[in-house]
């Protein structure tokens, strides 16, 4: 059964047209990932409008390609200019850049490519085996569980993005408030539209995303003016030897598994996965002091984990409709465009699409490996493109992209508005990603909260009496209280340290 379905999906993906789109997606993804200031999330947001004119499977698989390529691409600029091209590549700079400085930039990129590939493949395999089971379990979830998952997802993303849990939550709640605007789905009562007809349908999802990831980033880049860098290293001898790869195998496999697990948690994504993997590789290493001086182990730990996130993040996104990270949150837009609703029913009604995504993810990783090893030199040269020209070009894409969905200038206004809002929020250190998750989870949270309270006749206790939701809410509270707890613990230790030293 499984084999048959996979084979038929292989047939769909290996059509020349789909294959070309996927290859283009991976290449574009690497570009977006590699150029600092353009992220994987931005790449997906800008290209979602195109999936509108494509077949659902072909379009979504192309986005998967951008996702994989984008997360990997971040390592190229991490090695060459010590700026992670995408937030997930942050830990790669620690060892990648020193290695590049020693004249081994090619080798560093080679290690990054191979470990990204292995991490990605591990996560794809876990996705293929875990998703159907989770989907079956999810079939039994009711409104109580779904509301608890939404709250849990929002709290995870708030605790990992930005420097304060409270500010992350604020950003998430503002995101949910955005989704309230428009007609109420039960009573069709207009809410927060203030008589504006254009707002009756609410803020359209895709222009909002393009605003928060394309326009906001454009304004931030222009505002900070820190896009002047120069690549000086030579990139050669990219392909590492088999014995070198073997040495890194255990770190890479562990990174891939860790990445998949972190990715599968709703909300937590690449940056946190690569951090945990790097940290655990250093702690279990025989020579932890060498980490940070430019050793392959550090690159392998970081890159295998952040590409491991890709398959992991797709698990909750496909089975529950709750994205595993920022990129998959935006990707949900492509499902909406085609009136597809991710969740357990997707596995029953659109099984062929799900299998195309599986096969697409595996193939995207293979293409990423080939492009990375063959084209590293070329991608390195692209880093020297002048940002003064690239940024205006991106801004035109944000305009065209948001217009393309409904051919309505209002969408451009929404896009610009959310770009400016994101920029102003960054001035208060309010992160953008929780807001995106808030926008995605808002309608789900509202419908299920209302549903749950309808069942319980208005009693909030229902969230504490159902076991799954109780566990999720306890975890949420722990996440929220963690900074205070760990702060208190540190103070206690400091005090104890003082008394013993006296």
């Amino acid at each position, binding site marked *: 059964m499984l084999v048959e379905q996979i084979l038929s999906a292989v047939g769909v993906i290996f059509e020349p047209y789909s294959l070309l789109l996927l290859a283009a997606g991976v290449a574009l993804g690497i570009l977006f990932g590699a150029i600092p200031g353009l992220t994987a999330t931005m790449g997906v947001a800008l290209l979602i409008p195109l999936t509108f004119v494509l077949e659902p499977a072909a379009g979504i698989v192309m986005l998967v390609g951008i996702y994989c390529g984008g997360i990997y691409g971040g390592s190229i600029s991490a090695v060459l200019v010590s700026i992670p091209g995408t937030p997930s590549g942050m830990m790669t700079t620690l060892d990648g850049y020193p290695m590049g400085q020693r004249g081994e930039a090619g080798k560093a990129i080679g290690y990054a490519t191979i470990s990204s590939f292995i991490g990605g493949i591990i996560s794809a395999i876990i996705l293929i085996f875990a998703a159907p089971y989770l989907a079956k379990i999810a079939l039994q979830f009711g409104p109580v569980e779904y509301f608890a998952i939404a709250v849990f997802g929002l709290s995870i993303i708030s605790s990992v993005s930005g420097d304060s849990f*409270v500010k992350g939550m604020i950003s998430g709640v503002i995101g949910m408030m955005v989704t309230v605007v428009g007609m109420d789905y*039960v009573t069709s009562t207009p809410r927060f539209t203030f008589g504006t007809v254009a707002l009756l349908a609410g803020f359209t999802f895709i222009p909002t995303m393009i605003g928060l990831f394309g326009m906001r980033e454009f304004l931030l880049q222009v*505002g900070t003016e820190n896009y002047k860098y120069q690549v000086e290293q030579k990139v050669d001898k990219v392909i590492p030897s088999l014995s070198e790869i073997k040495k890194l195998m255990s770190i890479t496999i562990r990174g891939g598994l860790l990445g998949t697990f972190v990715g599968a948690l709703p909300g937590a994504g690449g940056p946190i996965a690569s951090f945990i993997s790097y940290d655990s590789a250093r702690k279990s290493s025989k020579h932890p002091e060498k980490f940070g001086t430019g050793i392959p182990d550090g690159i392998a730990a970081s890159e295998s984990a952040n590409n491991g996130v890709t398959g992991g993040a797709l698990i909750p996104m496909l089975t529950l409709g709750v994205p595993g990270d920022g990129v998959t949150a935006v990707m949900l837009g492509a499902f909406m465009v085609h009136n597809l609703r991710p969740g357990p029913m997707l596995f029953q009604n659109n099984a062929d699409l799900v299998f195309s995504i599986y096969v697409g993810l595996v193939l995207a990783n293979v293409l990423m490996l080939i492009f990375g090893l063959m084209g590293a030199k070329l991608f390195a040269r692209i880093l020297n493109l002048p940002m*003064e020209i690239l*940024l205006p070009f991106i801004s035109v894409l944000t305009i065209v992209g948001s217009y393309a969905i409904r051919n309505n200038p209002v969408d451009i206004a929404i896009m*610009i508005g959310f770009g400016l809002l994101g920029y102003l929020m960054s001035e208060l250190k309010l992160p953008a990603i929780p807001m995106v998750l808030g926008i995605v989870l808002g309608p789900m949270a509202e419908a299920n909260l*209302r549903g749950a309270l309808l069942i319980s006749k208005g009693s909030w206790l229902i969230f504490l009496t159902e076991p799954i939701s109780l566990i999720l809410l306890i975890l949420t509270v722990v996440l929220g209280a963690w900074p205070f707890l760990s702060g208190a613990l540190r103070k206690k230790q400091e005090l104890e340290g003082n008394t013993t030293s006296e």
Partner: protein
Amino acid sequence: MNKWFKNRDFIGGSILLIFSVWFYFTAQTIPKGNVSGMPPSFFPSFLAIILGILSFIVVIKGIKQILAGSQLKIERKNHKNVFLLFLLLIAYLFAFQYLGFIVTTIIYLILVMLLLKAGKLVKIVPISIIITLAVYYIFGVGFKIPLP
């Protein structure tokens, strides 16, 4: 008094607090409709209360910072350029409905590149024209998106 206005947590938190109060009271004016269960105003009010609590915490944090004499570290940005860009985008939004995509985009790109000091006009003008035509043909013709 100046240090109170310079503290972003204090100011930002206060703005959010006022916003949540406004959001709460606006939510109360939403007609109830006839449903059994939670009215349409329920979820917005719920969110407004949560936002109110969270922004109150941020205000307290800001006050603590002020009393301790510390500041939130924020990268300095060139707000003037961002503001000019915003104006340009608004102008684009109106202009492109009358002048059409190609003309507006070329003018917009030239102005933005001048703002970002991308180089001399001899270089900027041809680049702007090439980008515009490329986008027009890829999206408008290739993907059949009707650009005005």
